[in-house]
């Protein structure tokens, strides 16, 4: 090992660590906050935190999971379903629901900072519920 060059290597290492730290502080940040509803394409998307942070009081994106027994003293009353709602800045609304257990699990995995994308068919049944977690998404304020 060349001891004369050791300080130079240490300096490079220190500088590299600053660069790495600096890039983590900067990071990629998505600024899109608006809820987008496309009724013709039967799709909607939005970011929980971003929608909440918008200036208007209209935008909304919500997903709910329901498990209930409407006949607790007999068989056949249990049902499970989930639904999602999206409202854009103009008040255009979208709704889909499903009893699919995998989609219900997807809704249960959402957090307050999730970005979601939904699509539905002609009967309003959810065709997809995509959940995205990302460092680029701003946290709820």
């Amino acid at each position, binding site marked *: 090992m060349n001891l004369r060059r050791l300080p130079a290597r240490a300096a490079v290492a220190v500088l590299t660590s600053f660069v790495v730290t600096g890039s983590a502080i900067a990071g990629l940040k998505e600024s899109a906050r608006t809820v987008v509803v496309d009724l013709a394409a039967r799709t909607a998307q939005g970011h929980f935190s971003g929608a909440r942070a918008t200036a208007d009081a209209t935008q909304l994106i919500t997903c709910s999971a329901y498990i209930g027994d409407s006949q607790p003293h007999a068989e*056949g009353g249990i049902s499970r379903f989930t639904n999602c*709602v999206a409202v854009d800045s103009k008040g255009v609304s979208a709704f889909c629901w499903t009893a699919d257990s995998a989609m219900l699990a997807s809704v249960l995995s959402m957090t307050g900072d999730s970005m979601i994308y939904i699509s539905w068919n002609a*009967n309003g049944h959810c065709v997809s519920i995509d959940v995205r977690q990302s460092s680029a998404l701003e946290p709820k304020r």
Partner: protein
Amino acid sequence: MRPVWLSHALAGAAGVVLGALAVHLWSSPSRADDARASAAVADDGSTIVTPSDASASDERLRRLLREELARRDGLPVARTASPPAASTAPAFAHSADVEARSARANAVLDAATARLAWREEDAVELRQLLSALPPAEREALMTRFAQAVNDRGMRLETLGPPF
């Protein structure tokens, strides 16, 4: 010590007694046999299935007598001997209360669809109604709700979930 001839005599006597007892039991008619014989007289040629116990036989006899009396009096014969078939209806009991809730839920949705706005009070009421509806009716209602929102432009004005 007992003589051999005495043992043989006792065994023979026991055999005679057992044999007589067996013949008596074999030849005695049971209550079921009595009922079967009576029923055969009352019925006009129809085949009678032998019952497995006396009570079933008595019940069949009563039924046959009722049928014969009804025929004699010119009344329609009701054959109610066989039990009704098992119900294949869904497990959920449809009561008048369920029907009333379903009608009210659809009325709430119809009113909101007409005004093209789904409000917080609608959500509260439908949430309560939905919890008591059978799954099939609940799903039909949600499909109608989705079509009102996505196809007819009903706006969601609730603060949270629509119901």
